[in-house]
């Protein structure tokens, strides 16, 4: 703590420039993890949403409970669970796989709710008409329901892409060297926290704000098209 007080408390541009390349490398890892994680989440979420509409209670209820449970507990603890508990059962995952699987599972539960809203917005008559023309349940999903449900859900799903990006720095807690881990490392080596953490915040804004604006534009355009 004394070291912190001794160190000069002004912003050091030279130092900032020096650490920038490392920070950017960290950001790249963070973005990579997000992209892979959310891509899996978007597919898995759809599967979960379909399972929650299953005719069988033995499928519907456990899936529903699992979704609620995962949504209500911190991703950080879920990561620890994957990282420390699974090896006891001889499943050893790298930090990278841990954060990707963690993000994918966590956000699949969120996106499943969005898909569900999309599926519920498809009129009941569509199901009945499918039965009338003798489609199987799988055919009904594939050719009738999902083509209508997914476009409705799509803009809202964008919000979870942004949200998952914001959770991706948790990678540092399972020893993946993303943007936060780089910042922490620099802080540990130099005892200067101001530059690395401020740069981390600014770099983050540079990615997440344009992304959020893009999502909002998509939402607006979609709302316009539907009216």
């Amino acid at each position, binding site marked *: 703590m004394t070291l*912190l*007080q001794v*160190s000069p*408390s002004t912003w050091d541009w030279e130092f900032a420039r020096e650490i920038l390349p490392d920070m950017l490398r960290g950001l790249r890892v963070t973005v990579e993890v997000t992209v892979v994680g959310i891509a899996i989440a978007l597919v898995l979420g759809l599967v979960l949403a379909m399972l929650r509409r299953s005719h069988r209670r033995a499928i519907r209820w456990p899936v529903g409970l699992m979704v609620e*449970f995962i*949504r*209500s*507990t*911190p*991703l*950080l*603890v*879920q990561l*620890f*669970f994957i990282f*420390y*508990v699974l090896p*006891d059962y001889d499943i050893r995952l790298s930090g990278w796989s841990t954060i990707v699987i963690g993000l994918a599972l966590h956000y699949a539960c969120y996106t499943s709710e969005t898909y569900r809203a999309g599926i519920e917005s498809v009129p009941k008559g569509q199901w009945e008409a499918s039965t009338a023309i003798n489609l199987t349940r799988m055919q009904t999903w594939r050719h009738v329901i999902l083509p209508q449900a997914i476009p409705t859900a799509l803009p809202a799903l964008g919000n979870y892409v942004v949200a998952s*990006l*914001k*959770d991706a*720095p*948790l990678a540092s*807690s399972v020893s993946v060297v993303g943007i*936060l881990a780089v*910042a*922490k490392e620099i*802080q540990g080596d130099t005892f*200067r*926290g*101001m530059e690395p*953490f*401020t740069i*981390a*915040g600014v770099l*983050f*804004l540079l990615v*997440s*704000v344009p992304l*959020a604006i893009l999502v909002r534009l998509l939402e607006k355009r979609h709302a316009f098209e539907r009216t």
Partner: protein
Amino acid sequence: MLGRDQYQALLDGAQITLQVSALAILWGTVAAVVLGVVSLSPFRPLRWFVRVYVEVLRGVSAIILIFWAYYALPLFGVDLSAMQAGVLALGLNLSAYGAEIVRGAVQAVPRGQTEAALAINLSGWQRLWSIVLPQAMVAVLPPYGNLLIEIMKSSALVSLISMSDLTYEAQSLRQNRAADSIDIFGATLIIYFAIALGITGIVRLLERRFGRGLDTGRAGTAFGAAK
């Protein structure tokens, strides 16, 4: 299985989790209401200020905010304890998301309500406090409940700045090999889930309380059903 001592350690941690969450929710909610109302003010610079505040804070992730408050702020001469940094960061996060919810809900209160309040000569403050906000509450509560759960979940991040919350206690039990990891993290997740259920329950009660006498809200009203 966990022994008595281990349960006690987790429960002590849960108490810190509740404390951090409650303090952050308390000040974050006050800030959210103020910012939400201010974002509708006729004074343009004020509106812009809120816009920027909301965009920036929603853009950086809670985890980076916490690290920044803990490691970077001291260099600006503000030395915060881990508790203060955590409460500050989580509250900032909450206020940004909360302000948007409050703004939307206030906008959704029919104009006629304000006009009628004006007609019976209520002051600006009375119009806001006794007429508009109580009605906005009905629309605020469901999304706000979800937000509170998000904040409670984010409070797990304070374990990374060495506050002995629930997640931190779980980690130290694991490091001391005090029990099997699956028992430790299983119990931890269940405690978090229980806290989330508690929050949902409280929000439901509030929904019923504020929905009473209005025929709009989803919540059942005392007289509405009979009509």
